[in-house]
């Protein structure tokens, strides 16, 4: 028995529906438009009328048109077949959408036709099922029943893709039967469980979970203590991200947010990357789409795409599904965390998500907060980032979700609601500065403003010393603009040059260069030791020109050294040569 209703008002992507029967907040319904069914979600209920945001264009809907409610919240499909997929915000696979639209006409195949929704997981593909649970085992939601091979998860170098008791199951169940090893689709029954009330339930590989509800089938949350290796020097050394932590990248347009996210997606040492392109340029998604399958993941030797899922709800796609897209992304992440994997969720950009909330709130005529954002903006942002975390699962293994979100502040000014609400809840702040990007100093993470609460790959006090030089160098640089080089003491000038040196050889990293794009932690440690030596040295030069000349030479030598392979003899010789060069130029004690 499904509830139905009739449209009583239409405005933008919002419809009001008079219903008979019962509906739930966030329940999904379909507005019937001739042959088409347009998906919508309840966002407010007032007596017998509910307001729904429609996930498609609302053109041609009429007052009186029928709405059918599904009895379900917006769900994601979880199971084998998620990896390598490119989804829209509602988990429709984009390539399949194009095929489906091609049935209308060739011209139609280019566009996202409204009213077409496809299952997130392929229904016809068969997976080789290996049961690991035993008949008679007592299991609860999230416990492992068996595994299948999927791409890099082949149970050899990486564990198999685990099939779990659906997260929605409540209470304890007894395993009554398991399907024999063999090939099954995601909808075939692979286990029979008996509930504590002796009710028999069939379980399939496919399970569904409402995206706006966090999955919590783990035994405890752990502190994020371990550094997540991004191979970006500024981040790992100065502003680290923790496995299971959260961080944000605010920056004005053109400062390099997206390139930074793409580089992280390529190089981060995690098992799975879920990239949510939320309200950003379609062209950038296309780059990832065409590029990733060609790149080899050094960890597995296979295509990088095999550990990647892309949720792509670009700026021109319907705004309501943009709002849903970040939840879809984090729900898929929770599914993989439950398998004991480390997952990185990259959301670009959370401002577009916040704007989607603002548009929705405006249509609901809610009382606006600052810059017309809804009053619940902060709590929604906090709740989203709280879905990150490192957890101990009930079988003792550990999984994690790390969330990195970009923020696109209006006018590049960080003093705005989304940036401020985000800064309150994240553990790392990578602020991009226009001044740095204009000077082509990439990544444009501002070394003075940014911060992180997580552990660096280098000892904290060593990092602090280096930062102190950066800070002092910047102050001296400001001063020099007023008093000129002539008015600066040799001692101060040395600090200024040291800060510039640290910036040039360590902070700046070329994402488009083959050897410089990624610096693994061990290499960072060696490089940092050399940089440290150069910063601490007390140089014996008596004029600024000599000192400048020396630092420029040192910089050149360092850059030449940096393109040597880490295990090569040239690399260790180069290090020794640099150390010697610094020692020779220093005052003797």
């Amino acid at each position, binding site marked *: 028995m499904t509830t139905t209703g009739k449209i009583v008002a239409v405005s933008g992507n919002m419809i009001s529906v008079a219903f008979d029967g019962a509906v739930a907040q966030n329940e999904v319904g379909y507005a019937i438009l001739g042959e088409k069914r347009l998906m919508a979600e309840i966002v407010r209920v007032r007596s017998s009328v509910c307001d729904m945001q429609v996930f498609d264009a609302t053109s041609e809907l009429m*007052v009186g048109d029928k709405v059918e409610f599904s009895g379900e919240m917006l769900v994601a499909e979880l199971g084998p077949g998620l990896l390598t997929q490119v989804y829209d915000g509602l988990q429709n696979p984009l390539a399949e959408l194009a095929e489906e639209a091609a049935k209308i006409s060739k011209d139609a195949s280019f566009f*996202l036709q409204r009213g077409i929704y496809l299952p997130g997981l392929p229904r016809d593909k068969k997976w080789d099922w290996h049961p690991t649970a035993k008949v008679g085992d007592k299991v609860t939601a999230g416990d492992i029943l068996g595994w299948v091979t999927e791409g890099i998860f082949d149970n050899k170098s990486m564990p198999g893709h685990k099939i779990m008791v659906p997260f929605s199951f409540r209470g304890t169940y007894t395993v009554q039967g398991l399907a024999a090893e063999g090939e099954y689709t995601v909808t075939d029954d692979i286990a029979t469980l008996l509930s504590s009330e002796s009710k028999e339930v069939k379980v399939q590989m496919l399970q569904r979970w409402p995206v706006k509800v966090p999955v919590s089938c783990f035994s405890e949350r752990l502190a994020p203590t371990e550094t997540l290796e991004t191979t970006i020097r500024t981040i790992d050394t100065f502003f680290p991200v923790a496995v299971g932590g959260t961080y944000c990248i605010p920056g004005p347009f053109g400062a390099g947010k997206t390139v930074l996210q793409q580089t992280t997606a390529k190089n981060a040492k995690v098992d799975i990357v879920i990239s949510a392109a939320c309200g950003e340029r379609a062209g950038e998604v296309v780059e990832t789409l065409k590029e990733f399958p060609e790149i080899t993941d050094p960890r597995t030797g296979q295509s990088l795409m095999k550990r990647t899922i892309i949720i792509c709800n670009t700026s021109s796609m319907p705004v309501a599904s943009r709002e849903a897209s970040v939840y879809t992304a984090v729900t898929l992440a929770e599914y993989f965390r439950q398998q004991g994997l480390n997952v990185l969720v990259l959301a670009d950009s959370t401002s577009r998500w916040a704007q989607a909330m603002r*548009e929705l709130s405006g249509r609901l005529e809610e009382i606006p907060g600052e810059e017309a954002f809804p009053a619940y903006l902060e709590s929604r942002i906090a709740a989203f980032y709280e879905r990150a975390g490192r957890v101990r699962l009930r079988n003792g293994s550990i999984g994690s979700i790390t969330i990195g979100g970009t923020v696109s502040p*209006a006018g590049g000014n960080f003093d705005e609601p989304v940036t401020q609400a985000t800064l309150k809840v994240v553990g790392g702040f990578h602020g991009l500065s226009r001044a740095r990007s204009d000077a082509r100093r990439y990544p444009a993470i501002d070394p003075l403003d940014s911060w992180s609460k997580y552990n660096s790959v280098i000892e904290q006090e060593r990092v602090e010393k280096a930062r102190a030089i950066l800070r002092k160098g910047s102050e001296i640089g400001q001063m020099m603009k007023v008093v000129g080089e002539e008015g600066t003491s040799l001692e101060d000038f040395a600090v200024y040059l040291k800060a510039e040196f640290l910036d040039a050889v360590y902070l700046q990293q070329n994402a488009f260069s083959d050897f410089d794009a990624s610096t693994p932690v061990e290499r960072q440690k060696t490089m940092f030791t050399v940089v440290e030596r150069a910063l601490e040295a007390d140089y014996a030069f008596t004029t600024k020109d000599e000192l400048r000349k020396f630092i420029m030479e040192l910089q050149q030598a360092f850059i030449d050294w940096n393109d040597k392979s880490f295990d090569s003899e040239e690399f260790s010789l180069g290090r020794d040569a640099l150390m010697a060069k610094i020692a020779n130029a220093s005052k003797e004690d």
Partner: protein
Amino acid sequence: MFNNKIYHKIDALSGSIATLRAEGVKYNEIAEIESRAGTSLAQVIKLDGNNVTLQIFAGARGVDTAAKVRFLGETMKIPFSEALLGRAFTGSGIPRDGGPEISEDPSPIGQPSVNPAKRIMPKEMVRTNIPMIDLFNSLVKSQKLPIFAKAGEPYNDLLARIALQADSDVIVIGGMGLKYDEYLKFRDTLDRSGALAKTVMFVHTAADPTVECMLVPDISLAVAEKFALKGKDVLVLLTDMTSFADAMKEIAITMEQIPSNRGYPGDLYSQLASRYEKAVDFDGAGSITILAVTTMPGDDVTHPVPDNTGYITEGQFYLKNGRIEPFGSLSRLKQQVNKSTREDHRTVMDAMIKLYAQFKEALEKQSMGFRMSAWDQKLLSYGDEFEKAMMDLSVNIPLEEALDLGWKILASNFAKDEVGIPSKLLEKFWPAE
């Protein structure tokens, strides 16, 4: 189901918005309003029970409460045929040039978004013969790029020049809030060069009703999309998108929507994006390249319109003092094309810009009264020559000549080892004495 019923009573009029009671009306449907003010089309922008809110294209001035309203049963469509080429229309598609109406193949405007899976990576350079674009920030087929300028800069001249010189099969010009003489100038410039025959213009002039201004990008892009689906490479020129945003602001305020920033509606970003994202290179059909003008009120790039635009587009050209500024201007897609033009392209681009940055510093030092070194003197002379010979908008040379000119400027001011260019390229390209 065609709703032929005619309504005779308008309940409320405000700005260009009318409200009346009607039944069986579709959201976004088009209606025809006949009143003392004449006949105009209108679009349904809100349904609330039996209350229908209409946005009148010609504005509500002179519309009486007893006006005749007839709903047409369909959403906004624009006729499409090759006959559009060489013609000029208003923002609601009515001929502006005295030519016949076109009625073939009416196609809906504001179609859904392109499926990202059906896009291909942009890879073809669009040559404009403007060195500041071709050499320093190459324009790429299917790119969306705005020109940021304050009022008074020659942005429309620049747009017209690009229209004339860039390779494209079809040009669509969308004018918003144009002065009438600017429209004439566009038309005459294109006519003189013979490009008018491949151009279709949708022009809203400053004197026309606001609502028509809002329709211009959708109509222009709908037509562009149709041509692109037929395999054509289409160049769309939109000027000025700030007028479009202001028109949206006006309507939103009349509709009593809650403004977000400086009075602009909260969905400004989505609205601008849904237009700019029409720029595409179809996998298996033609392409759309969008060049737009965004005037910056008060020359302020943090104003909501240029700010939101910058987040959407793939770079921007800053037009300042009649020149495309090398700093701030950016083509995000140039990396895709400038590796395969001429081997010295990237090197000359980088070297010249780095030296120009140093020139700016030297200029600053000079104005502060610091002593000028011999090197500073070289920089000053270089910067001066660069600005005159290369940055001036009247310079009109192909990329290869621009590169040669670049070498010449470098060689006339610096010694070989002062420009930071690898020896291999110096040997090949450094001009002989």
